[in-house]
């Protein structure tokens, strides 16, 4: 790591920047989300762009990709040469700048080869037809450069999330001439499972060592400190740290720079004494099976937070959805909730599990969590509209009270009930999603990666709210690969392997204990 740091510094001092953005402002309507922002990435450097949700970093990336046109005055230079505006995806990639977006940009229903070679397909030979054998070889070579062994003939939608991200990165990297160019990785590790991260980091370091510049956008501060030699931090659209070296910086110090204030301390959540002595479990899973889960038996006491973690396809990612009745076609087993009854998970839908007091906070917020075209209030109250209707009608009073309660519990900003959910930042949308289910006071609260893609401030608030739900008597099942989250809120952590519980850790435990057991 130190070698990379030194290389980065030396390069920054001696040559013109690989990518230089200066005086970048962007106004939407009346709000100015970027104010004279600038960033300079040196050749062969791993540079991190940081900031809270809503700080303007997504807008900066969107301007670079040509999705938003900046206010007049902005200058973008690659290797010292100004890039003519307006910026276009084709224009920037011709100059060696590639952007891997968080959404990956893969085309479902097409093969890995087609996705990797998309945009590079050329007719070859006298017929000017695409030679698929050739394209397939190139795709395999691009994947091999990432040390990835993925069948090039599989459909991308059949790949696990980790491999999909690899395909997207392979597509971005094949256009890069070794030793040149700049790759922007916008939250690219978000969908990568923990166990493939070391390999991914090694790839990034190798590319940087060859001279390619990497700009990473990430909420994972440990990742930033591991990879990046310098950071640029945005707060409220302004640069508050321009290319600050990371050497010797702690995560707490970095969090301080991002938030502009001290991170409010999070007291590790522990089950209260009276709940610990509860006579019966609040929820009991009996022989739960699914596509990857191969028989899990589990009892969760009221007020207990049970963490579930594991490598890809260990079953830890699937378990929440089986328990919540989201995948009745593949699920087997029984779920019993104290005071609610028993549900046969085979064939039971979400309406059956919610009826006995189960609530699921899914990880895919945009597609499964909240409907962004509906208002914040409508999203928060949705699970309870049927129960709380009076004489068949929905009154404003209880809905407004629920929304206010959501804002108070999770400090949602802005606290405007009738704003479309899409107008909220990612972190605040995540808070709305959590509030939507917390307000049902579920007997069993099931969560999958509740803190993904949220900044450090929102993360502490979300974890605190989960702890509070447990204090109020909910049994909590938290599936996550974030060992720090698990160590902070869980009373017990189950490590799954091959669909079964392989190890069980009890509080107090540290993130390192959990990582070591995974």
């Amino acid at each position, binding site marked *: 790591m130190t070698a990379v740091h030194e290389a980065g510094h030396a390069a920054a001092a001696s040559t013109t920047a690989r990518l230089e953005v200066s005086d970048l402002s962007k106004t939407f309507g009346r709000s100015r989300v970027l104010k004279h922002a600038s960033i300079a990435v040196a050749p062969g450097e791993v540079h991190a762009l940081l900031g809270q949700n809503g700080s303007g970093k997504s807008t900066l990336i969107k301007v670079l990709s040509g999705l938003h046109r900046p206010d007049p005055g902005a200058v973008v230079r690659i290797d010292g040469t100004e890039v003519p505006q307006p910026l276009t995806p084709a224009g920037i990639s011709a100059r060696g700048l590639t952007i891997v977006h968080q959404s990956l940009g893969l085309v479902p229903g097409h093969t890995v080869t087609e996705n990797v070679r998309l945009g590079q397909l050329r007719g070859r030979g006298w017929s000017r037809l695409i030679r698929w054998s050739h394209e397939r070889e190139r795709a395999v070579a691009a994947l091999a450069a990432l040390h990835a062994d993925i069948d090039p003939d599989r459909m991308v939608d059949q790949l696990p999330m980790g491999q999909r991200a690899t395909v997207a990165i392979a597509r971005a990297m094949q256009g890069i001439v070794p030793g040149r160019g700049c790759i922007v990785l916008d939250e690219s590790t978000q969908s990568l499972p923990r166990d493939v991260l070391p390999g991914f980091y090694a790839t990034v370091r190798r590319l940087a060592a060859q001279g390619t510049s990497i700009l990473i956008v990430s909420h994972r501060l440990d990742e930033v400190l591991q990879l990046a030699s310098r950071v640029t931090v945005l707060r409220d659209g302004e640069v508050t740290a321009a290319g600050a070296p990371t050497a010797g910086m702690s995560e707490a110090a970095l969090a301080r720079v991002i938030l502009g204030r001290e991170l409010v301390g999070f007291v590790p959540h522990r089950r209260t004494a009276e709940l610990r002595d509860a006579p019966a479990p609040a929820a009991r899973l009996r022989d739960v099976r699914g596509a990857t889960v191969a028989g899990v038996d589990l009892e969760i006491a009221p007020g207990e937070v049970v963490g579930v973690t594991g490598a890809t396809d260990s079953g830890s990612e699937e378990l929440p959805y089986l328990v919540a009745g989201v995948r009745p076609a593949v699920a087997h087993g029984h779920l019993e909730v104290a005071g609610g009854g028993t549900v046969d998970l085979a064939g039971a839908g*979400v309406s059956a599990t919610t009826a006995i007091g189960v609530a699921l906070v899914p990880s895919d917020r945009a597609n499964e969590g909240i409907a962004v075209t509906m208002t914040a209030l409508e999203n928060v109250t949705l699970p309870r509209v*049927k129960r709380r209707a009076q004489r068949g009608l929905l009154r404003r009073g209880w809905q407004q009270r629920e929304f206010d309660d959501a804002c108070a519990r999770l400090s949602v900003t802005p606290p405007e009930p009738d704003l479309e959910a899409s107008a909220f930042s990612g972190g605040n949308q995540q808070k709305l999603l959590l509030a939507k289910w917390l307000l049902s006071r579920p007997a069993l609260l099931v969560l999958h990666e509740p803190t993904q893609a949220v900044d450090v401030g929102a993360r502490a608030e979300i974890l605190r709210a989960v702890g509070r739900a447990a204090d109020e008597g909910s049994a909590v099942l938290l599936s996550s690969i974030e060992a720090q989250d698990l160590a902070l809120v869980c009373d017990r952590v189950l490590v799954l392997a091959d669909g079964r519980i392989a190890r069980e850790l009890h509080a107090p435990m540290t993130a390192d204990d959990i990582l070591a057991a995974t």
Partner: protein
Amino acid sequence: MSHDLDAPPAAASPTTPPAAPPPGTTTATGARRSAAPASARVRDLAGRYGLVVVWLVMAAVYAVLIPDTFLSLGTAQTIFGSQATLVFLGTAAVAVFVVGEFDLSIASIMGLSATTVGVLAVNTGLPEPVAVLVAFAAGVACGALNGFIIVVLGIDPIVTTLGMSVLLLGVAQAISGLVTTSGLSDQLALVASYNVGGFGLPISFYYGVVVAVAFAVVLAYTPLGRHMNFVGANREVARLSGVRVQRIRFGAYVFSGTSSSIGGILLAASVGGFDSSTSGSYLLPALAATFLGTAVVQPGKFNPLGTLITVYFLITGIVGLQLLGFSGWVSNVFYGAALVIAVTVSTVARQRLVRR
């Protein structure tokens, strides 16, 4: 690797409640709220009822150009008395659009019901109430068949209802033998045309208003309406929230068939019969009103009240142009243009909203 991210900072007490939210956020929104309430409210009203203003202006222009013919009771009766069928078709379309579905067979279901009433009552001599009930049941069954194919079997709604639309048109033509039915009784006509309160407006006008208002209340103030909106906004989110998505989608098609069928029965009753080949000409006006209706009352959303207002806005424009001497082609031009303009305006407005 340090893991001190969430450790309580040494200085701060771990029990302190969350610090005040980052400066600027709440105060900024508060200021924005109080700074421009008046202009914002004006813009909001203009967005909601702009079309009503255009309607009034249009009526005023006609009143100046052709005062003798336009400002007559007969014209008012033509405008408000002839459109109930379109209101029922528009309501049917809104119901399927709200849940994110599509139904191109509404006009043909309407036509099949209208034809069935005439054929059964006049040609085969069944009592009229029985003919009406059979026609009604046929419409409901067509809606249920759409729902079964699309929701249960999972077939694309546009293809399915396009096919059903032509199929049902053919069935109606077959049972009528391609002959216009006529000769329904005056008693049946009263069901549609009874002059309520002596204002000169037929009762079918009020049916349409009641259905549109009732449906608007359901959408805005009932759990069913909220669930329908979420199914349309994001089907998977609705499913994961415990909403019975399939049931609601199926129900929307059944409602669509039912409402279309009522529209057809009212049409046959008021005219005394029906020409089965003309049902297709009702589809575009209904869709035009539904899409243009997204610009009224609840901008950007399919809504029954907006559709109701738009139906009468469109017919006012057409009647005025016809009184000015333009002939039959004008309604095609007007409805077609309204549909394209409505979709363009609402899409552009939506993009601007998103970009902001």
